């Protein structure tokens, strides 16, 4: 069983990840590069600051450490990390479907993948719109915690609403769970800093959601198509 999950997850993630990496190259990456041309003047003046700030800002600073050179190396590392993310998504999706005891076929894998996108893409985006580099935003650790909490609450809420029987109390609890992160609210910066034109930022936000939706969709379709092909040979 483990080898079946790993084989299907690796293959589905690899194919989806490569397709999405190619798509990123013509959709989101050009916008990130465009945004960086606006970010740079700020960065130069901010760079010599002693790296003694609190953990949150240090974690996402653009220090002098290694980073892939622009061009092919940058594309390569983006592609590798996108493929790794897609494989991770595939493992998690298969694992959750196996835990839930649902048969894995094309229709169901796609439906669960879309639910995954709602939990990890749409719901967190309602509080933390996908941002270009250089945008003002709150402490990164706080935002990551809110993001993870929202994804988990939405996933559990969807499961409670759709699959945990149809008892009104359960459904009400599920709705509370779905809404709670948005009442708590995501951590935000109090002032706007970005020098990137709003048009580019808006385009990026929409595109990044589309890219993420396609990643989940392709992973789901891939799992649905491959799972039956890796069925164990029945003995006897």
């Amino acid at each position, binding site marked *: *069983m*483990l080898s*079946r*999950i*790993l084989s299907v*997850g690796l293959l589905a993630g690899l194919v989806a990840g490569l397709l999405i990496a190619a798509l*990123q190259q013509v*959709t*989101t*990456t050009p916008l*990130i590069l465009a945004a960086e041309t606006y970010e740079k003047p700020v960065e130069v003046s901010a760079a010599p600051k002693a790296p003694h700030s609190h953990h949150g800002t240090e*974690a*996402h*600073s*653009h*220090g002098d*450490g*290694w*980073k*892939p050179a622009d061009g092919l190396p*940058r594309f390569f*590392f*983006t592609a*590798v*990390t*996108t493929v*790794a*993310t897609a*494989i*991770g*998504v*595939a*493992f*998690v999706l*298969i*694992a*959750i479907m*196996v*835990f839930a005891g649902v048969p894995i076929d094309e229709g169901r894998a796609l439906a669960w993948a879309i639910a995954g996108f709602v939990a990890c*893409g749409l719901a*967190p*985006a309602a509080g*933390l719109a*996908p*941002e*270009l*580099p250089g945008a003002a*935003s709150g402490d*990164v650790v706080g*935002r*990551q915690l*809110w*993001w*993870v909490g929202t994804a988990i609450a939405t996933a559990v809420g969807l499961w409670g609403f759709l699959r945990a029987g149809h008892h009104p109390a359960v459904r009400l609890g599920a709705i509370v769970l779905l809404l709670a992160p948005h009442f708590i609210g995501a951590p935000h910066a109090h002032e706007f800093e970005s020098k990137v034109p709003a048009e580019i930022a808006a385009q*990026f936000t929409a595109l*990044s*959601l589309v*890219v*993420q939706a396609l*990643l989940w969709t392709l992973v789901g379709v891939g799992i649905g198509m491959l799972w039956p092909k890796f069925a164990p040979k029945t003995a006897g």
Partner: protein
Amino acid sequence: MASTTVTAAKTTDRSDALRAAGIALILGLGLIFLTGFAYPEVIHNAAHDTRHSLSFPCH
């Protein structure tokens, strides 16, 4: 008798499946943590465009 064997086999299959799913879940979450959340600068810089593009919270 035969049905007992079948039930026993099914139970073993199910626990085997759950164990495999648990391992896959940990592996999957580990990969997503590395590409989407981990702090070391080298990982952050390598995954930078992916994090923005897939709407993980970045800087």
